[in-house]
């Protein structure tokens, strides 16, 4: 299958949605599940082939448009398709529980969102990347405002305005690149980036940094992010946290390493990541809204990832990618589980965690919490220890101390929530969960444990990804059309 279908199939399904809707909601839901299943299985199939893979359209690169799948994007592809599959299962329950919602509208944007995110990580020219960026953006604005209530629309508007700002920076950067180099092919850009006038290149880098950094929720540009999470549905939050934010992060570091930025930039990104981590974790302590709280937690984890990914040491980066995967799974689990509670209690106050009665939900949520905190034997632990190990190898003890100290702050609110769940003195109301959710949440929880006790399953892919990210020679050859 050509890589193009990763983009094409969701788009086709998205356009067919009105017809599916006419055929009934079963078809609508089923078709999306089918689509995501196909994508996921296809991705699994790609794990067996030699990488990178390329699919060009009409012309060979560097002139034509092409999709390239290397180790780095394979990892993200796995995460995205898997998350999408999980969410599409979850939405079956959601729409059953919430009768009378406009299902078609959700699925249109959902499919397109996945198409856009996947496009972003596969595309090998910067302009296509921008288009996918915008597609992802538009779909996220729409999904964020899906509820069409006051809060939903407010978050949609906020997200849209921020998206506009980010896209102006990125368009500007792309134009400058084209003016300087005369190409949009990533391979050529990477090759010739060093020849640009340093002042212009600083400007380009800064603009890309601001553009993608804003979307990837880095500190001084992330004042909007918690609002968006608070206003959107829990399942959409799960998508934002484990797919959309990760896609922007992917692009950020893809460009970062392709352009071969020097250690000053690395230090800068690391400091920014650290500040993001610090501020978010502290702010999270003060939250009363559960979705908002986990939004801050997501920001914090992104902070760690930025810290670790900007080190250019394969040990740290590999750890960070492991952590990223584990975080995606855990956050998806948490947000989906919260969705069930929020639906039941019609409220997103923190107290709902103390008022439900369901051993299953308690266990899966606890697994999610412990995993994010990096406590063995859950997958977050492996990620965190790999990151710390990486920092230790470069003798960056300050980073280790920083991460560990702030992690204690993180533990404060995670365990406050856990203690609320376990508190027997509160009035407890039993929560119906639904068969689909039992399956979905158990799969996620089992994965978290599995990656925790048998990390080799995942380290194989993170090592591939690290290698592809830090040594993009193969990728460049393909992007330049040399190897074809």
């Amino acid at each position, binding site marked *: 299958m050509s890589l193009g279908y990763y983009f094409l199939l969701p788009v086709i399904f998205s356009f067919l949605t009105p017809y599916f809707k006419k055929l009934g909601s079963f078809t609508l839901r089923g078709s999306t599940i089918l689509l995501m299943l196909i994508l996921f299985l296809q991705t699994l199939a790609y794990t067996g082939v030699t990488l990178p893979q390329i699919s060009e359209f009409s012309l060979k690169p560097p002139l034509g448009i092409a999709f390239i799948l290397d180790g780095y994007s394979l990892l993200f592809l796995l995460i995205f398709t898997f998350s999408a599959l999980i969410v599409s299962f979850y939405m079956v329950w959601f729409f059953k529980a919430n009768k009378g919602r406009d299902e078609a509208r959700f699925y249109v944007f959902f499919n397109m969102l996945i198409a856009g995110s996947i496009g972003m990580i596969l595309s090998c020219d910067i*302009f296509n990347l*921008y*288009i996918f960026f*915008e597609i992802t*953006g*538009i779909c996220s*604005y*729409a999904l964020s*405002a899906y509820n*069409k*209530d*006051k*809060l939903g*629309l*407010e*978050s*949609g*508007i*906020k997200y*849209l*305005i921020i*998206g*506009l*700002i980010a*896209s*102006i920076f990125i*368009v*500007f950067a*792309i*134009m400058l690149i*084209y*003016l300087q180099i*005369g190409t*949009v092919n990533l391979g050529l850009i990477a090759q010739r980036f060093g020849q640009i006038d340093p002042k212009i290149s600083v400007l380009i880098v800064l603009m890309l940094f601001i553009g993608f950094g804003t979307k990837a929720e880095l500190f001084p540009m992330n004042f909007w992010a*918690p*609002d*968006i999470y*608070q*206003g959107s549905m829990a399942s959409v939050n799960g998508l934002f946290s484990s797919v959309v934010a990760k896609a922007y992060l992917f692009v950020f570091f893809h460009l970062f390493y392709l352009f071969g930025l020097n250690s000053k930039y690395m230090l800068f990104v690391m400091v920014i990541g650290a500040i993001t981590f610090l501020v978010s974790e502290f*702010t999270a302590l*003060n*939250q009363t809204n559960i979705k*908002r709280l986990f939004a801050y937690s997501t920001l914090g984890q992104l902070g760690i990832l930025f810290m670790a990914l900007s080190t250019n040491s394969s040990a740290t980066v590999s750890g960070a990618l492991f952590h990223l995967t584990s975080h995606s799974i855990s956050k998806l689990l948490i947000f989906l589980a919260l969705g069930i509670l929020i639906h039941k209690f019609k409220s997103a106050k923190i107290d709902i965690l103390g008022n439900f009665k369901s051993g299953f939900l308690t266990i899966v949520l606890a697994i999610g919490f412990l995993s994010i905190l990096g406590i063995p034997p859950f997958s977050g632990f492996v990620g965190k220890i790999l990151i710390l190990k990486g920092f230790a190898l470069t003798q960056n003890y300050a980073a280790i101390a920083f991460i560990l100290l702030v992690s204690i702050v993180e533990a404060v609110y995670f365990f406050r929530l856990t203690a609320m769940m376990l508190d027997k003195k509160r009035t407890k109301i039993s929560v119906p969960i639904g068969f689909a959710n039992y399956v979905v949440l158990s799969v996620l929880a089992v994965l978290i444990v599995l990656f925790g006790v048998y990390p080799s399953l995942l380290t194989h892919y993170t090592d591939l990804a690290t290698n592809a990210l830090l040594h993009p020679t193969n990728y460049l050859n393909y992007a330049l059309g040399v190897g074809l």
Partner: protein
Amino acid sequence: MLEFFNSTQTIHTIIIIGSMCLFFIGFYGIATQKNLVKVLVSFDIMESALFLFFIGLHYQVGLVAPIVDSNLKTFTNMVDPVPQAMILTTIVIGLAVLALGLSFGIEYYKLTGRNDISKMNELRD
């Protein structure tokens, strides 16, 4: 006199100055305006400035538009087609975002009667 205007240099200068003016008008708009519609319009102005800038800089005197018709027999002596294609796409995207933004704005206005973006702060700490 007119030849002066016909030189590539001059045209580029005019375009740069003009697009910069436009850009800063847009910039001024988003920095000061709080009405959602005005903000969106300001963004559009900024984007337009970028488009103008980009397209304009790729125009050179004596080159023809990259459209295959009687004037263009060989693929030489024409303006670089890539920026034009890019800008066309970007315009479409911009339009889509603008439309979405306006529709959000309208819905929001219907619900709350507000369109001041600085007062959209029900989502906050």
